[in-house]
């Protein structure tokens, strides 16, 4: 199978064989022909499959390493040359280039510019005594104002007891090792045994005094205070931190997690408490909700609640829109548009044109209910309250589902856990959970009692929480 067969299957016209553009295809086919004899066997088959759509970039396979090995060009010369590592030492290293090119003179190492030394003050004994004396006097003047410190400092100096020779020795070492304190401490070999902190403190104290007399505005002066005690303390802490056992580390981590939890819980309880306090502030409503059942009542309630919110709480940016109002507005807009289109003069046929359909519906139902209760009252107008009671007839004026029921089944129920608590309280009050005589009046009182017990339980829960929160924050 050759490429032409595949082209036939795929219904692709081959450029080379189409007679229309024969002349242009000739060179390419000839080029392909030139390429062909080079491949044999499987590769030839492959090339047959590829046809003339050969990849544009010829991938040169093969390893050039051997060729390089075979290259005849001369290697570039390298020479082993002396150079100056520092003013005292000369070393040798390999440099590219022939001996003639490099030259004979000693060259500085390119790294010598990194060989920097600290400038550590040097002084003679007289200078030392004068500047030490000067600053000590100054300090004394300062310390006279608060004499407690001066005695301490005096004591300290007695304990240290540095001679000038030792100081000179210390400064020499400092210069030599560029303030690498561990080296200095290691090499320090004077008659007295000094700790690392002693050395540091003395060095910084003298430097401070030196700069104070010679150059009071030196920028380093502020960073030259060193307290040995603090350093020792720091090291102790570090020691303890590093010598903790794995168990201790684990315990510490657990404690951190625990403390985080506590913090979170405290935050949450605080928030809850705030909301509770806000609840306590707001007036407790015992009124019936009937006045909010109409649309006007509803929107009024909404606006008062909103006003309440903005007054008492932080302003909440995402107060939900009153969906009712939104709908009303949409309705109103819709209506206005319609009016605009129709442009009838008698649009204002209704007494209040701004009322939406829904509002009117609400109005109607409210009116209907009123007429219903009026009708019910009318039916009973011949009976006084005593007679009504005897007949067991009540006009409650509310929307309750019609039908027959047992009075005792209409008592408010709560979630099981809460219900049990309420029963427990009732038992405590030596009252039955179901009144012995569930008549209308009794049930009304019972309902009130149960609601109050509910409030009580809620309040108790919050007080307990509050107390727990206080004990946590303590």
């Amino acid at each position, binding site marked *: 199978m050759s490429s032409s067969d595949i082209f036939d299957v795929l219904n692709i016209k081959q450029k080379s064989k189409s007679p229309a553009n024969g002349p242009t295809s000739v060179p390419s086919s000839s080029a392909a022909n030139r390429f062909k004899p080079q491949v044999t066997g499987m590769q030839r088959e492959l090339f047959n499959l590829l046809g003339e759509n050969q990849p544009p970039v010829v991938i040169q396979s093969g390893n050039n390493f051997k060729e390089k090995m075979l290259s005849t060009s001369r290697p570039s010369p390298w020479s082993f040359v002396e150079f100056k590592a520092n003013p005292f030492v000369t070393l040798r290293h390999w440099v590219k280039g022939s001996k003639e090119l490099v030259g004979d003179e000693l060259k500085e190492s390119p790294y010598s510019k990194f060989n920097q030394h600290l400038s550590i003050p040097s002084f003679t004994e007289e200078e030392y005594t004068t500047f030490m004396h000067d600053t000590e006097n100054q300090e004394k003047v300062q310390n006279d104002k608060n004499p407690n410190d001066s005695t301490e400092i005096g004591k300290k100096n007695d304990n240290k007891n540095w001679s000038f020779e030792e100081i000179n020795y210390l400064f020499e070492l400092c210069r030599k090792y560029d303030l690498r304190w561990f080296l200095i401490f290691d090499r320090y070999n004077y008659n007295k045994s000094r700790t690392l902190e002693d050395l540091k403190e003395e060095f910084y104290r003298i430097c401070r005094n030196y700069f104070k007399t010679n150059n009071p505005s030196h920028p380093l002066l502020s960073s030259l205070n060193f307290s040995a005690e603090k350093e020792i303390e720091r090291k102790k802490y570090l020691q303890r931190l590093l010598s903790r056992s794995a168990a201790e580390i684990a315990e510490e981590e657990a404690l951190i997690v625990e403390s985080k939890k506590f913090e979170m819980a405290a935050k949450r309880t605080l928030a809850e408490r705030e909301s509770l306090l806000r609840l306590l502030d707001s007036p407790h409503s015992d009124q019936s909700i009937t006045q909010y059942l109409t649309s006007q009542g509803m929107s009024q309630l909404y606006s008062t609640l909103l006003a309440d919110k903005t007054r008492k709480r932080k302003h909440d940016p995402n107060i939900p829109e009153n969906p009712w109002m939104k709908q009303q507005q949409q309705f109103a807009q819709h209506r206005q548009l319609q009016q605009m289109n129709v442009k009838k003069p008698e649009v204002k046929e209704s007494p209040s044109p701004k009322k939406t359909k829904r509002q009117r519906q609400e109005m109607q139902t409210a009116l209907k209910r009123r007429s219903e209760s009026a*009708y019910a009252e009318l039916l009973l107008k011949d009976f006084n309250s005593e007679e009504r009671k005897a*007949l067991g007839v009540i006009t409650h004026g509310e929307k309750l589902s019609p039908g027959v*029921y047992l*009075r005792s089944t209409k008592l408010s129920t709560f979630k099981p856990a809460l219900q049990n608590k309420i029963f427990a309280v009732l038992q405590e009050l030596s009252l039955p959970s179901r009144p012995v*005589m569930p008549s209308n009046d009794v049930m009304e009182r019972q309902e009130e009692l149960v609601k*109050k017990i509910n409030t009580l339980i809620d309040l108790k829960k919050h007080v307990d929480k509050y107390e727990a929160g206080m004990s946590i924050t303590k």
Partner: protein
Amino acid sequence: MPPSISKRIKTLSVSRPVIYGNTAKKMGSVKPPNAPAEHTHLWTIFVRGPQNEDISYIIKKVVFKLHDTYPNPLRSIEAPPFELTETGWGEFDINIKIYFVEEANEKLLNFYHRLRLHPYANPAPSTDNENENNPPGRNAKDAEVSSVFFDEIVFNEPNEEFFKILMSRPGNVLPSNKTDDCVYSKQLEQEEIDKIDIGIEKVDREINELKQKLESLVKEEATQ
């Protein structure tokens, strides 16, 4: 609004007091002829007015569904008195269905009563809803055990026709004082209200105490 016959009177409800429950007595050696040998008690379950008034003007029939082990457990009582006497040895829940007269056009009322045969040694008044009728002087063993509940059937928004029937007689009248025959009276009602009022007072007091406690806690925290 033209009043039609089947129209419900909105925003109005009529209630009728009713008593349901059972009485039970231990049978001695004298047993009804058809009673099974293992039955030990003779009991009667009933639904009636508090003073045995006629309630057939609202109730068409009462169906008691007994335990499945009884032959023919669905017992329908179609005429007053709405009561059923049986023998038995165990206590069980009896399903009571009250069907109302045709004019009412109401669904049936469905509830349960736990048949009680045995007097309890210490009837706890707070958990037990029943009104103990047992006079203390009598020997507890042969005393008649009774478990009776008072309730009110409330017809919310009855239709016009049924309303007329309901208005035809003062069905909600209770005796003013407690008597041995009928404890359910205005007196008992007032006692109930008084008891609950005392409870409300106690709860109010506790609420106030807790409020003060909370306020003092808040202050304490503010000073910290």
